[in-house]
């Protein structure tokens, strides 16, 4: 519902000058989203699908971001996140996805292990593994198929002014945009968050994550395995076909050395950690590395501004929950904005934004703390700690209610859920 009121305009008769370069009228929207990634795009699709005019700005060329060279990573989409993507009409555009049927958590070489079987929670997998480029492609198709959402890319927000009654923005290619609220989905170094003066709390680990894809001889049967090695967690996540995505952590210096190994030697290092239960393996595609760090914004909101995804929080990849946490922001923010619009309220109003912060900030902080704690607990080879956590894992495995709770958290179905996360429409 962009403003219906016309601004007073000069009458045609009062413009005797020949037409100069026409000044385009500002683009009017309800919501401006800065950042068209894995958070900004689904938010735009969700809002527009429910009837809000939405403009998304992204710096990257849409043709480039769906290339494997731009982002070769794979994301674990939790059950609830998949339900949300299905409810907003994105999931049916996802070309291929590998269901996760089992999660096994193994502590080093210990005989004790925790086993999550999807049948414990009824039908449906625990989640899906989707290549980021496949997900980006699906999101672009959903944007194209949804009226009222426009992706302007490549275009950067050169200037964003958050006034008392609305937001006005100018892109680097000179377009003017008016909206009631601006959402920062512009990543962990969010320029919008910086401009709003919202501090972040962050800490780094002396570890780095390595990510690569392997092909193996035998099928993985949809089993995801998380092995806690002394250096840090080593995750094997099933992909379509006889492929798996590996995410593992090493001390930063070792990870750097690992990145420079010739392919044959790198393969040996991978095989040593992965094991031979799926037969011979081969590394396919490039390897990636990034330093492990956690960050959390002190506030998720400012005047007519909401932070979502990595702009609000970023985490250790240990639990594979970063994107899912961001999609929970998307589900909550979309619901709060759409509900406010259905009441005819100003969707950039302080009360509306506060509802979003109340709903999301505690959840994110809890997950960050748990993830940090898990990493500290498991990146440790001291004997008593090992024994305690071995017993702990085995004990969790024998206590169905506790295990059920953990599994629900892995699926993202715990707590009071926004409608989208239960698969309902907005």
């Amino acid at each position: 519902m962009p403003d219906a009121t016309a601004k007073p305009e000069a009458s045609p008769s009062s413009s005797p000058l020949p037409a100069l370069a026409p000044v385009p009228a500002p683009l009017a929207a309800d919501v401006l989203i800065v950042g068209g990634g894995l958070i900004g795009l689904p938010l735009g699709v969700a809002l527009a699908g429910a009837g809000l005019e939405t403009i998304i700005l992204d710096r990257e060329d849409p043709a480039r971001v769906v290339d494997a060279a731009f982002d070769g990573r794979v994301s674990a989409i939790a059950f609830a996140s998949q339900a949300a993507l299905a409810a907003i009409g994105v999931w049916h555009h996802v070309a291929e996805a590998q269901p996760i049927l089992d999660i096994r958590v193994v502590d080093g070489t210990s005989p004790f292990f925790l086993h999550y079987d999807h049948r414990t929670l009824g039908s449906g997998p625990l989640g899906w593994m989707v290549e980021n480029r496949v997900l980006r492609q699906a999101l672009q198709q959903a944007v194209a198929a949804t009226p009222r959402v426009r992706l302007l890319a490549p275009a950067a927000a050169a200037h964003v002014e958050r006034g008392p009654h609305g937001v006005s923005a100018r892109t680097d290619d000179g377009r003017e945009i008016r909206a009631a609220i601006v959402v920062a989905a512009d990543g962990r170094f969010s320029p919008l968050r910086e401009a709003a003066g919202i501090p972040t709390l962050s800490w780094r680990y002396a570890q780095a994550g390595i990510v690569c894809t392997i092909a193996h001889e035998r099928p993985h049967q949809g089993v995801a395995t998380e092995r806690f090695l002394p250096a840090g967690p080593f995750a094997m996540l099933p992909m379509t076909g006889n492929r798996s995505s590996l995410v593992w952590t090493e001390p930063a210096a070792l990870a750097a050395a690992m990145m420079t190994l010739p392919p044959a030697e790198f393969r040996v290092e991978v095989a040593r950690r992965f094991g031979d239960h799926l037969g011979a393996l081969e590394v396919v595609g490039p390897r990636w590395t990034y330093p492990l760090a956690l960050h959390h914004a002190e506030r998720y909101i400012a005047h007519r501004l909401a932070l979502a995804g990595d702009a609000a929080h970023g985490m250790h990849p240990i639990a594979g929950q970063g994107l899912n946490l961001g999609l929970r922001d998307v589900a909550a923010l979309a619901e709060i904005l759409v509900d406010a619009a259905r009441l005819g309220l100003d969707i950039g109003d302080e009360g509306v934004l506060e509802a979003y912060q109340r709903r999301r900030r505690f959840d994110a902080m809890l997950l960050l703390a748990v993830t940090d704690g898990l990493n500290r607990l498991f990146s440790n080879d001291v004997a008593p700690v090992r024994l305690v956590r071995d017993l702990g894992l085995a004990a969790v495995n024998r206590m169905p209610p506790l295990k059920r709770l953990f599994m629900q958290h892995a699926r993202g179905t715990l707590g009071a859920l926004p409608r989208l996360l239960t698969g309902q429409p907005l």
Partner: protein
Amino acid sequence: MPAQATPQPDPTGAATPEPREASANTIDPAEVARFDAMAEDWWNPNGPFRPLHQLNPLRIAYIRDQIAARLGTAGTGGGGERMRPLKGLRLLDVGCGGGLICEPMARLGASVVGIDAAARNIAAAARHAQAMGLAIDYRHQPVETLATGSERFDVILALEILEHVADGEAFLAACASLLVPGGLLVAATLNRTARSFAYAIVGAEYLLRWLPRGTHDWRRFIRPHELARSLRGAGLTLETLDGAHYDPLAGRWSLSRDLGVNYMAIATRPAGA
């Protein structure tokens, strides 16, 4: 709640369909400064009108759903029109204050006229609507003089005003005459019970200091059967009465069958009348 000052005789009131012009012609800098302060107050969610801001989502949803159910405007149009369910309706808000209800109604698609007996409320409301880019027709005018004209409305809102007017029956009669046949009146007021005395006077005005002391006179609160009788007297048909219940811990309002404190009434003008 202070949505409306007591109506007062105002010789200029009836003849100012364009309140912005009226105020622009008699600019008093001190007054303008006060309007600004007032506008800030009305629209500040943490200011003196905080209770109204908290109550608003419930009231708006109630009004929207009652209109949809009784005037058949639900689910018309697809896509973006879903956000404008009141499109095509003419709506009058009597005692509109700073426009906290007028603006949502306009965004939902209604063509809105807001009247208030306090000139500074109208000025504050008009300034805010213009800043938000909303076309709302605000007028400094009592309902009685509006009723002498030929304008008619599909929906009339009389929220937290009955307990402030001098003659409730005359007020409702004026409202009734402004409705089209089949049109809808939504009234919200406070019941005259021991509990409403405890909540609205002792609690809201004295203990919590939500409202300035003296905002409400408990003796003028209206019992549901008194309201029903007045509505009948005005030729309207009472359709339903619903209570609004406040949960102080959650800071949230919900609909309730309990009419003991805040309650709302829906009445219609018979189609043949």
